[in-house]
Each structure stands twice: as structure tokens, then as C-alpha cells.
């Protein structure tokens, strides 16, 4: 028996039918991590305590919803007693004294956190090339990027090492790597999942979510990840449905919004036809396509690249070498302590964003940049509100193409920023959005994005699951269809 490429659903069945012990599962995960060490998907492993947990579960079986399910945690979540680096040199020695609410929620549901996954430094990047701990490779091709920033998580799931991983998404950091690695991932509504213990990049945009092989598994994970948390003022005190409940609802009569303002001209024909084929698939599932307009969509990327760096420039000020993390050696005075610590500790992309952010917030520029960006952000949100009065979901390609080669965009930040062209608007509007595999171009997977209305993760999971009952793109692996 193997758990490689298995879904959570399948592993749960294997456990309940005693085809495999919890310990065997965890041991296989570490074997797979070993075999796939070239992927560089993990930064820190949690082997001894994971095996111990599995043994405990074998001795005292639990009926918790995710009991014994191995999960890889993005290294952006604080994990008590386990090093948490956020992909940065400045935190390469940081061991948090507490765990993120998401981590606690998943572990309380029985998940075993096998290790911390590699990521773009402070989640800033779309290719996993900005990590202090080196590139992550895409299991679909060693020269390919896995996407970012949750690249380690996406790579680990795509390689079949774990059935599930946590991710975070500020501008597409769950959906874009999900698309490039051929897996399913969802960014919930802003406020669904507590941000307590997530190392902040852009506080008003950051949201954690699950990455897995199927929409159904994402629903299982999301059931546990969501909570109203009094430790996070922006956490929503809203009813959290069981996301599995409506997953099988027929799509007949439901409406899919197709954005007519979307400029697809820069996309390859292959990419467009994959996208259009999947729209037709939904038509054959009974859904109706409706043209909608999101007139301010084209402003998403510039708006995002004002708001996110502004917040990051402030959020990252605490990394000053005074209290935790790396401190430069022998500074001659306080100013040098700051300058050297931050110069040595941060990578280029992080520095670039701190500079942009400091600039747009500075006196005299605030109104022209930050304030204006917030105004545009409200317009974008309003566009979505209007669109959702007509449709149940909105679909776009997740990415402009399949995985690109390592090194091909890293020297051109603008090209890299455009990677998030389709995903960013959901963050700006606070809406839930999912990516799921919908095609394969030159043996490289690509994803479809389904954006849902506020708090309506159930509907996008329903669309995703129904699509996956009819197609098998989610069953493609680098080693063939499973």
C-alpha cells in the first residue's frame, strides 16, 4: 500500500479499513520527502514528533475528521517549537513560542504536520525563486518553477508526497502555484481563516487556505481551517457551513460569469482553448454562461503593487535585529545595527517592495498612491458586487500560461508581477477563489480560476467538485494519470 498521489478521502478510507497504519503513512511521507529532496520543497522537517503522533493514533484511534492525515505547512505559519523562517535569512533561527490558529485548527482535527514548506521570501514572489533556502522545483519538470509563493506546498502535493498542504494567498500565492503544479487550491473569503500566527505580508490581503488534489479534499480541509478567532479582529464572525454539504449539487441553471473585459490577447492560443473548453464543460454540466463586465479589472495589478508593498513595508519593520531573528554582528551604532541587519537579512525582492511601500506612504505621495489605490480597490470591489448580482461564480484562467522555466522571469519584476494578473482582483475584493487543473500544455498542467461571491466558498467548491467528477485533469501526475 502506498499513499503517494492519494487523496485525503482515499487515505481516510485506507486508515478506517486498516489497510495501513498511521505510522506507516508518516514513515512513507518521510521516505517520499527523501526521494524527492531535489524538489527542495521542505525547509524544516518535524519527523520525530510526527512519528510519535502517528504511533499515538495507532494506539488510540481517533474519529476526528482528519485524524492521521499528513499535511505540509507553509513556513509562513508560526509553529510552536518548530523553526519558522518565512523563506528568509532574517528568520533562519526563529523558533516561535506559539502556533498559528490555522495550525492549531488543523492539528486539533487530527492532521500531522510533517514539515514546513519552502516559499518565496515573506511570500513575495510568483516562482519560489526569492527563497533564502533556494528554488523549489516543479515535479513536472526540474527546470520549471512551481509558482509562488506557496511553491513548496504546491510541489509537495503535486509530487504525491502529502495529500494536503497549507498555503497563503495575498495576490495569488495559493492559486498560481496550484495552477502551475496541477493541483487544487482555494483562497477563502478574507476573514474566514484567522491570520493569528501567519507572518504578515499585506495584512488586508493575506488569507490562508488549503492546497490538495481535489476540490472535495479542499472542502474537508477548509472545514477545519476556518474559525472565528477573537485574536484576529478581521476574522469574520459568520456562520461557517460544512463545505462538503453542497458539493454534489447539480449545476443546472447556475450561472457562470465570463468576464468580457478580460484581455486574453497576450495569452497563447493553447491557453485560451484550454480555458474555453472548460467553460463548455460547465455548459454541459448544465450551467449557463453569462457575459459580465468588470470595468476596473485592468487596474488590479497597479493597485495591488501599491497596497501590498505599503503594508509590507510597515509589517516587516519588526525585523530589526533587536528582539528576534538574525542580528548583524558588531554594528558600530544603532543605525548600523538596523541597516546591516536588514541589508543582510532581506533578499532583493523584499527590499524592492519595502522601498516601493515606503515611497507610496511617504509624506507628499500618500494621496497620489496609497489613497488612490484604496479608492480604486473599492471600485474593483463594487464591480464584483454588481457582477455577483447576476451570476453564481466568475471564471478566468488562473495564470497566463503553464509553468515557466527557472530564471526566465526573475530579472524582470514587471513580467513576474503580471503572473498574478488574474488572481489579484479576488484579494483586493476579499472574495473567495479557487484554482483547479483544467488542462495540460506540453505536459505542463494549467488551472482554471473560479471566483465566488463573498462568503460563498460552498458554491465554488460545488462547481469545482462537479467539474472533477466529469474530468480527470486533477488525476494527472508527473508520472501519468492516477
Amino acid at each position: 500500500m502506498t499513499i503517494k498521489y492519494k487523496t485525503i478521502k482515499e487515505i481516510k478510507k485506507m486508515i478506517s479499513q486498516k489497510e495501513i497504519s498511521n505510522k506507516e503513512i508518516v514513515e512513507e511521507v518521510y521516505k517520499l520527502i527523501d526521494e524527492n529532496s531535489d524538489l527542495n520543497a521542505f525547509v524544516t522537517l518535524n519527523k520525530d514528533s510526527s512519528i510519535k503522533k502517528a504511533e499515538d493514533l495507532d494506539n488510540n484511534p481517533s474519529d476526528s475528521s482528519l485524524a492521521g492525515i499528513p499535511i505540509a505547512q507553509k513556513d509562513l505559519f508560526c509553529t510552536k517549537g518548530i523553526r519558522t523562517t518565512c523563506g528568509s535569512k532574517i528568520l533562519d533561527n526563529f523558533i516561535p513560542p506559539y502556533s498559528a490558529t490555522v495550525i492549531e485548527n488543523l492539528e486539533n482535527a487530527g492532521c500531522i504536520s510533517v514539515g514546513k514548506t519552502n516559499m518565496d521570501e515573506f511570500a513575495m514572489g510568483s516562482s519560489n525563486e526569492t527563497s533564502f533556502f533556494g528554488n523549489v522545483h516543479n515535479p513536472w519538470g526540474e527546470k520549471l518553477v512551481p509558482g509562488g509563493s506557496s511553491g513548496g506546498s504546491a510541489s509537495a502535493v503535486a509530487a504525491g508526497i502529502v495529500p494536503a498542504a497549507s498555503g497563503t494567498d495575498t495576490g495569488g500565492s495559493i492559486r498560481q502555484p496550484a495552477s502551475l503544479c496541477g493541483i487544487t487550491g482555494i483562497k477563502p473569503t478574507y476573514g474566514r481563516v484567522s491570520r493569528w500566527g501567519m507572518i504578515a505580508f499585506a495584512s488586508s490581503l493575506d488569507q490562508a487556505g488549503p492546497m490538495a488534489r481535489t476540490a472535495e479534499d479542499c472542502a474537508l480541509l477548509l472545514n477545519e481551517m476556518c474559525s472565528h478567532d477573537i485574536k484576529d479582529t478581521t476574522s469574520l464572525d459568520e456562520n461557517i457551513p460544512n463545505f462538503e454539504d453542497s458539493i454534489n449539487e447539480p449545476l443546472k441553471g447556475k450561472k457562470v460569469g465570463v468576464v468580457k473585459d478580460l484581455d486574453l490577447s497576450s495569452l497563447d492560443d493553447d491557453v485560451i482553448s484550454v480555458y474555453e473548453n472548460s467553460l463548455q464543460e460547465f455548459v454541459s454540466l448544465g450551467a449557463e454562461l453569462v457575459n459580465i463586465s468588470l470595468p476596473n479589472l485592468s487596474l488590479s495589478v497597479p493597485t495591488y503593487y501599491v497596497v501590498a508593498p505599503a503594508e509590507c513595508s510597515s509589517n516587516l519593520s519588526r525585523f530589526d535585529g533587536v528582539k528576534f531573528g538574525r542580528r548583524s554582528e558588531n554594528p558600530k551604532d544603532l543605525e548600523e545595527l538596523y541597516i546591516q541587519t536588514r541589508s543582510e537579512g532581506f533578499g532583493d525582492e523584499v527590499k524592492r517592495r519595502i522601498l516601493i511601500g515606503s515611497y507610496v506612504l511617504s509624506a507628499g505621495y500618500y494621496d497620489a498612491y496609497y489613497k488612490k489605490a484604496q479608492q480604486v480597490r473599492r471600485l474593483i470591489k463594487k464591480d464584483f458586487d454588481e457582477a455577483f448580482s447576476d451570476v453564481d461564480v466568475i471564471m478566468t484562467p488562473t495564470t497566463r500560461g503553464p509553468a515557466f522555466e527557472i530564471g526566465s522571469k526573475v530579472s524582470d519584476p514587471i513580467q513576474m508581477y503580471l503572473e498574478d494578473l488574474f488572481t489579484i482582483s479576488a484579494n483586493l475584493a476579499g472574495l473567495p477563489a479557487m484554482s483547479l487543473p483544467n488542462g495540460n500544455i506540453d505536459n505542463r498542467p494549467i488551472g482554471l480560476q473560479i471566483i465566488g461571491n463573498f462568503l460563498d466558498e460552498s458554491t465554488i467548491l460545488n462547481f469545482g467538485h462537479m467539474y472533477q467528477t466529469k474530468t480527470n485533469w486533477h488525476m494527472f501526475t508527473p508520472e501519468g494519470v492516477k
Partner: protein
Amino acid sequence: MSWETVIGLEIHAQLSTKSKLFSGGSTEFGAESNTHVDLVDMGLPGVLPVVNKEAFYKAIRFGLATGAEINQVSSFDRKNYFYPDLPKGYQITQMTKPIVEKGSIKVLTDEGEKLINITRAHLEEDAGKSIHDLFEGETGVDLNRAGTPLLEIVSEPEISSAKEAVAYFKAIRQLVTFLDICDGNMAQGSMRCDVNVSIKKSGDKELGTRAELKNINSFKFIEKAINYEIERQIRVIENGESVIQETRLYDSDKNETRSMRSKEEANDYRYFPCPDLLPVVISDKELQEIRDNLPELPEEKESRYVSEIGLEESEAKIISSSKAMANMFEEASSKTDDIKLVAKWLVGDISALLNKYNIEIDESNLSPENFGKLIERISDNTISGKIAKSVLEEVWDNGSDVDEIIQTKGLVQIQDESLLEDIARKVIDSNSDQVAAYRSGKDKLFGFFVGQVMKETQGKANPKSVNEILKKLLK
């Protein structure tokens, strides 16, 4: 040339909440370094602030007491700057939408009462402390204070002298202590202030360039620092130079202000709305509840003391001048029927002692119970007023019980009229010369006889009885 001074004060009052503004960390003063610091206060990666509503309630009390507008929706911003005792690299404060705006307070100045407007009062978190003198060549950081709620009270630039600035500060201090929102302890830094000072030619409409004097924490230093600064600015201008906008530090040892940084070197704080916190909404019900439970304010107390208790206005003013004084008055009054006598003693002997030792009444050994008892013993004629003074002195020294002092020292007043008459006769018999002189018209000698009787009784004779007996015998 004559000059006018324009002063504005920014007073930071630490709000007396149990926990910090954005965390459950304790705000207690004086604990061992870095022991009242939780994850949020440390600014660890991933932590988030959660608003302590209690701080808002206290700020609102201040707003209501100064007749201000309360913003029922207020919000927080980040003020970004680097400093070792600022754990997050930014301070969370209320820049754009403060909880309190447009209040005012009456201040007693040499020219009479003056209304000084309060521009705004906003909530913000305090920083920690940098400790420079404890470690050779190194600086220590103590984060106990980090995150303590501060109410920053900003006055309009309407104060026109150092004395008036002190009077304003005193009025604010009196108010916040009466409101029970700040302990007013300046030595512990519970109240600190920054002073903006500028001068202009008499009659000019336009304000001069101001200097900001930082972080002064005693009334004495406020006055000295402002006076120094006024003179400095006059000197600068009269020398044909101009005052530059800058932050200056007052050095109390040398009694001078020194430039810290000029406007050009000043931080660009890059304020922006704090994305971790939603706007804080105060409901009508919350607001009404705070309004209904506002404590009696100094002015209200003062007029009640006059109209209901019948105190002299001057007495009422002194007694309502501080919360500790008013508390002492009201509590002691509940122990005795002679409330006017309570007031008389508070304003007289007790105030004299407070001045002499330069302390507040709640720092003394005198408890309201003991004080009430002392008044009771005077009014029931157990002891005379004169004896009471010596009893008070002993209580002042060691806090002993009034009745115990009276008993052990045998201070009970002699009421027995026949005994007093015997003593009076003896005095008259042994001072025949004085008796003759008195009878021949030297009225002033009456006091001599009273003194002699008191001497014989070691001051324990009831003075009223002694007077009556002597008058009768000396006829």
C-alpha cells in the same frame, strides 16, 4: 518690543486599565523588566492587536467631561519609525479619526478663569523603555510599558504663559484623576507632556515658528522649560535670526533646552490606516451608560459643598481641588455630624501639614476614619481644639488611633465645673496683683488668667467653661 507667547500642550496620560491597549499583558508599574510582556507586546511575527474597549470607555469619560464630541466610529493608524523600544517598528495611534475631538476645560489663571480648548484626545500605545545606564556599552530594552494605553490630549495653541501652561496641566490632571482614568502619578510617568512654544509680536495675527519641547514630567520643569524657551526665542529674533521648527529637549540640570532634531531631519512617519484593526464602533447604549456613570466632577463637587453643606466657597474650592482631598472630606464627613468642622480642619491644619511635607493627603498617615474620629472628639468636647492639634501631629507621625492617643496620654478634657472653679480660685488667689490690675480696667489680663488655668490643667480644661468661670470670679 513686546512679545506674546503662544503655547500648546500635548499631554500623554496613561490610562489606568488592567491590561494593555491591544493585548492581555498587565499594565502594572514597577515589575521586573520584561515580565509584563505577552506575544503581542513583543511584536512577534504573526501576532495581531485586539482593542481593549476599557481604554475607549475611559477616553470617552474624558471626552464627556470636557464637553467634547465623541466619535462613535474611530480608527487606528500606524506611525512608522524605528526605535529599539518600539517592538513592531510602528506605533498604533489614532491619526485620522480620534475618539475625542473639540473639548474644553476651565483653567484658573492669575487673570481669572480661562477656557482652553482641547483640539483632540486620541488613544495610542506607549513604547517600552530603553535603559542606557545599566549595561556597559550596551542598551537594554524593557518592554513592560510597551502597549500601555495612552490618551494623548492636545490643546489648541491658546495658552499664553508658562504659569498658564502649568495651570492647564494641573486642571487636566485634576480631571483625569477625578474621572478615575489615570492615576496622575507624574513621578512614575503616568502623565508626561510635550510643549509647543512660539512667540510673536504683540498684536500679530500670524503665529511664529514653534519649537517642540519633549517629554517633560513635572510642573516645575514645565514652567522652567517654557520660560527658558521664551527667552531663547526672543533672543534669537532680537539678534536678527529666526526660530527654526525643531524638537528640543529640556535639560533640568542645566535649565536649558537643546536641539534634538530639526524639521528637515524629522522622521517621515508614513502614517496609514492600520490594516489589522477594524474601525472601533461605540454604540449609543455604551455611550449612554458611560454618561450615566460619570463621577461627580470637581466643579460639581465645589458647588454642592457650598449649596448643600454650607461650606465657604474658598473651603469648597480647596477641598475639591484634588480627588484625594475630596475623598478624605466625604469619607470623614460620614463619621461625624460636624461636617463644617471637618472642612475647617482640612483647609486649616491639615492643608498646612500637606504643604509643609509637600505630599498629597492620600500619601499621609491620616485615614478618613481616624480623621472623622478626631473631629467627633472635638465636637463632643472630649478634647479641646488645642489638644486636637497635638493629637493630629501624633497621628501624622505614626497613624495611631485617635482614641488610643487620648486615653494613653490622658488628654480627656476636664468638664467638671467645680474642679475647674477650684483651680481658678487658686490662680486668682496666688496672683492678687494681676487681679487688682484687671479689676482696675486692664481687660487684656483676662487671657493671662485663662493661660494660668490651662497651665495648671495641662491644657485639658474646657476653654469655654474656663472663660465663664473666670468671668464670674473676677467680677
